[in-house]
């Protein structure tokens, strides 16, 4: 028979060798450390709990002429055995037998803190309650009657304190001496349901007759056995009859009541807390409604929640499209102007002027990668707006509102959060479905995620928006994102009603974080990291794709020589022409746009690279326009200043554009400066697009790009997570939906 670990301390329960020990316990963030520092001053010793990496702090306090060691226990919410901190705190209390415990309680959150207090009292140790943060509780209108609380807790001392102001600490010190002298304890704190009380008493009889368990509170030990606490069963395994009785009691209670004893015990504690709170705490009615609650009543309103979410989305894309435009033009001007000129100069210096290497650098790499990099301000603006929504706490509400909306339609409405991730990138959105436990839910959500318009598609909308919709390009972007959500909902509808119709939608509870003013540093880091991901992609995948496209356009297939071939007769042009007729019903059956759709499978930004190389390259070869470094540098600075003024103008103009949404209202927009960016690559691409597309075919083309097969990384992620079968279904479905939608837009639009 194994000997139980002795619960009798053989010396002081502290490393300071003082005769008296007090443990300081409490919930995390209840102000325990402040109280500890205030009580012990500079007399502190910091180490680790034996065998653990958790910090152990001890300090010396003199009260009533006695030197007392204060041991700061890890912050915990209970004394169960679910975390290392709880085990450390519990083992110290039951093995080291401190002379008393000071329970530091957050007065602003008394009910939650009382759960630990009750368990502390159950251990049989004398407990003193420091009702901390009582000033903040008062400010919030929460009135706690300490005397009444003391009565409810069988006359345990309750001392209101304000740790950081050292208020109440003298009273707390004075309360310690009588408690450790008399070791005043409460035998019974919570009266559980009779079914539990009967078994507690039976087990107590075993415990009281076991000398090896004499150091434990028999009631506490009996409760722990009924809670099926395996670490406690280990401690008492020498007493086989008691172990068997405890196991039998657990089984019997579970069988007869349908609930395990630990559920009854936890419920008893919560019931006791409720009875205390009713008599002890007074809250003014209006203080129970926080600012967050008030905002939630509007922003998560059952009817207005969805329109408000859509309005915020519209605002985001107005911001993205208009605020970023001046800097987009500026970078475009720098890339297609001075940077290209300097590249020509470098090639001349190296004796490569007019060579295919120069053409690869200027028409392939600079046009391809540069054509994508100019959209960094757009992505930066989008990520900034989304980061503000995330950090303010609104994004969680958006997901909640949309989930509720989808649920109301009988759809799989618990997946919108992973879908929101898809606004950034489809790949993490697919992996984010791992948060859903059910495999079918995961598959459906990943399927829907491909319709969420990722950041890579945004440059395409922007360039078409600028070419065909001018200052209303933000509306096109908004319409595209909205269409993506709409198609995802329709797809969910099809799947839920036709394929997974027997599967009920499980309800769920979502924690909505409190609203807060966005943290500038957090927002800055988020925006930087996301923008850098875009730039890294331009330097890798898009660079390689641009080189390959240039090579395919330089290789003749039906006539001409290398780098001396009509684009249409190149390998790229010839191959693209094969699939072009498929898209003719959608209004974009030329080889240039078809080729761009094919390369867009690599990454959606490559569509821009391809269109730039095919349309702009075909219309006009880039030629040097001057290489004066000083002039170019001055021009870069001048245009940057101009872009900054235009950006400020665009920020100001968000207000009239928003107000002008109200019918009958028309506020003029500010027009401080205007620029002519017609010489840049993007401007030339816009011109080329306006020649080769009509507004309707441009819209159909954008709809196709929104909905068709996501990039190869996302497709690979789909295969990785759900297998090749599901991936091919998704590829086929997205292509079919995209083609059908584009054709419908073009054909029906043509009839209007």
């Amino acid at each position, binding site marked *: 028979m194994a000997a139980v670990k002795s619960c009798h301390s053989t010396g002081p329960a502290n490393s300071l060798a003082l005769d008296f020990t007090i443990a300081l316990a409490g919930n*995390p963030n209840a102000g325990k450390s402040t109280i500890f520092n205030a009580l012990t001053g500079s007399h502190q010793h910091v180490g680790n709990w034996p065998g653990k990496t958790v910090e152990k702090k001890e300090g010396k306090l003199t009260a009533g002429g006695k030197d007392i060691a204060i041991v700061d226990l*890890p*912050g*915990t*919410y*209970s004394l169960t055995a*679910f*975390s*290392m901190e709880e085990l450390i705190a519990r083992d110290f209390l039951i093995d080291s037998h401190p002379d008393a415990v000071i329970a530091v309680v957050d007065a602003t959150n008394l*009910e*939650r803190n009382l759960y630990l207090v009750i368990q502390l009292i159950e251990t049989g140790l004398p407990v003193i309650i420091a009702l901390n943060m009582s000033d903040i509780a008062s400010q919030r209108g929460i009135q706690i009657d300490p005397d009444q609380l003391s009565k409810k807790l069988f006359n345990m001392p309750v001392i209101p304190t304000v740790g950081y102001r050292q208020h109440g600490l003298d009273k707390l010190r004075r309360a310690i001496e009588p408690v450790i002298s008399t070791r005043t304890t409460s035998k019974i704190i919570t009266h559980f349901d009779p079914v539990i009380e009967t078994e507690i008493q039976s087990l107590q009889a075993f415990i009281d007759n076991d000398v090896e368990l004499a150091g434990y509170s028999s009631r506490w030990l009996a409760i722990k056995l009924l809670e099926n606490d395996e670490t406690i069963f280990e401690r008492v395994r020498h007493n086989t009859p008691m172990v068997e009785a405890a196991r039998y009691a657990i089984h019997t209670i579970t069988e007869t009541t349908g609930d*395990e004893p*630990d*559920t*009854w015990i*936890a*419920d008893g504690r*919560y*019931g006791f*807390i*409720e009875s205390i709170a009713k008599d002890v705490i007074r809250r003014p009615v209006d203080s129970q409604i926080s600012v967050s*609650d008030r905002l*939630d009543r509007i922003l*998560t309103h059952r009817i207005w929640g969805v329109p408000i979410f859509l309005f915020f989305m519209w605002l985001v894309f107005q911001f993205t499209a208009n605020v970023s435009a001046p800097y987009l033009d500026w970078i475009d001007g720098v890339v297609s102007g001075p940077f290209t000129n300097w590249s020509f100069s470098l090639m001349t210096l190296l004796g490569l002027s007019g060579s295919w290497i120069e053409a690869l650098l200027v028409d392939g790499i600079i046009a391809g990668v540069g054509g994508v990099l100019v959209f960094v301000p757009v992505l930066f603006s989008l990520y900034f707006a989304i980061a503000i929504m*995330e950090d303010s706490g609104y*994004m*969680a509400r958006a*997901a909640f509102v949309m989930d*509720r909306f989808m649920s109301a339609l009988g759809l799989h409405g*618990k997946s919108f*959060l*992973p879908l*929101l*991730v898809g606004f*950034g*990138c489809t*790949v*993490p*959105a*697919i*992996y*984010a479905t*791992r*948060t859903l*436990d059910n495999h079918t839910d995961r598959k459906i959500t990943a399927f829907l995620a491909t319709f969420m318009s990722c950041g890579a598609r945004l440059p395409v909308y922007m360039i078409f928006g600028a070419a065909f919709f001018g200052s209303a390009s933000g509306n096109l972007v908004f319409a595209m994102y909205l269409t993506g959500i709409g198609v995802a909902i329709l797809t969910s509808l099809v799947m839920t009603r036709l394929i997974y119709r027997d599967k009920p939608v*499980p*309800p*769920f*509870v*979502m*924690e*909505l*974080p409190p609203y807060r003013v966005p943290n500038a540093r957090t927002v800055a880091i988020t925006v930087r990291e996301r923008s*850098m*991901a875009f730039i*890294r*992609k331009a330097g*890798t995948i898009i660079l390689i794709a641009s080189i390959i496209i240039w090579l395919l356009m330089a290789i003749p297939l039906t006539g001409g020589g290398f780098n001396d071939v009509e684009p249409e007769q190149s390998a790229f042009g010839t191959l693209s022409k094969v699939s072009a007729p498929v898209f003719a019903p959608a209004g974009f059956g030329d080889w240039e746009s078809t080729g761009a759709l094919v390369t867009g499978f690599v990454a959606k930004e490559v569509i821009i690279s391809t269109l730039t190389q095919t349309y702009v390259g075909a219309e006009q070869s880039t030629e040097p326009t001057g290489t004066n470094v000083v002039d170019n540098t001055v021009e870069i600075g001048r245009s940057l200043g101009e872009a900054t003024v235009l950006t400020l103008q665009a920020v100001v103009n968000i207000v009239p554009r928003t107000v002008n949404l109200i019918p009958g209202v028309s506020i003029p927009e500010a027009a401080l400066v205007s620029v002519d960016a017609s010489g840049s690559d993007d401007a030339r691409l816009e011109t080329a697009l306006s020649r080769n597309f009509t507004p309707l075919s441009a819209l159909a083309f954008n709809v196709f790009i929104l909905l068709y097969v996501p990039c190869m*990384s996302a497709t690979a*992620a789909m295969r990785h997570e759900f297998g090749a079968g599901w991936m091919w279904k998704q590829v086929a479905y997205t292509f079919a939906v995209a083609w059908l939608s584009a054709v419908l837009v073009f054909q029906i639009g043509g009839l209007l």
Partner: protein
Amino acid sequence: MSALRDVLTAFEQSSGPISLQRLAQQLDISPPVLEDMIHFWVRKGKVRETGDAETCNTCGSVRGCPFVMNLPRRFELVRDGETTAPHCHHLLNQG
């Protein structure tokens, strides 16, 4: 059985998503206490907690995927026939 069972019943009877704050108002308990009660049921395997999005490494970002949002926690009822491992993640992080 009172408050603790009420929480589970609220999960079972809910017809759609509900916020933790709203449920706390309905049950007339403070949100932190409700959160503790929900975690009790999570430990019992009756409710599961979701919300921590796992990242992916396909874009080669050293610091993890920058697009993964800090998702709020979500609790849902474990349906009949489903199994779930007792989820102590949150408690382990609380210490």
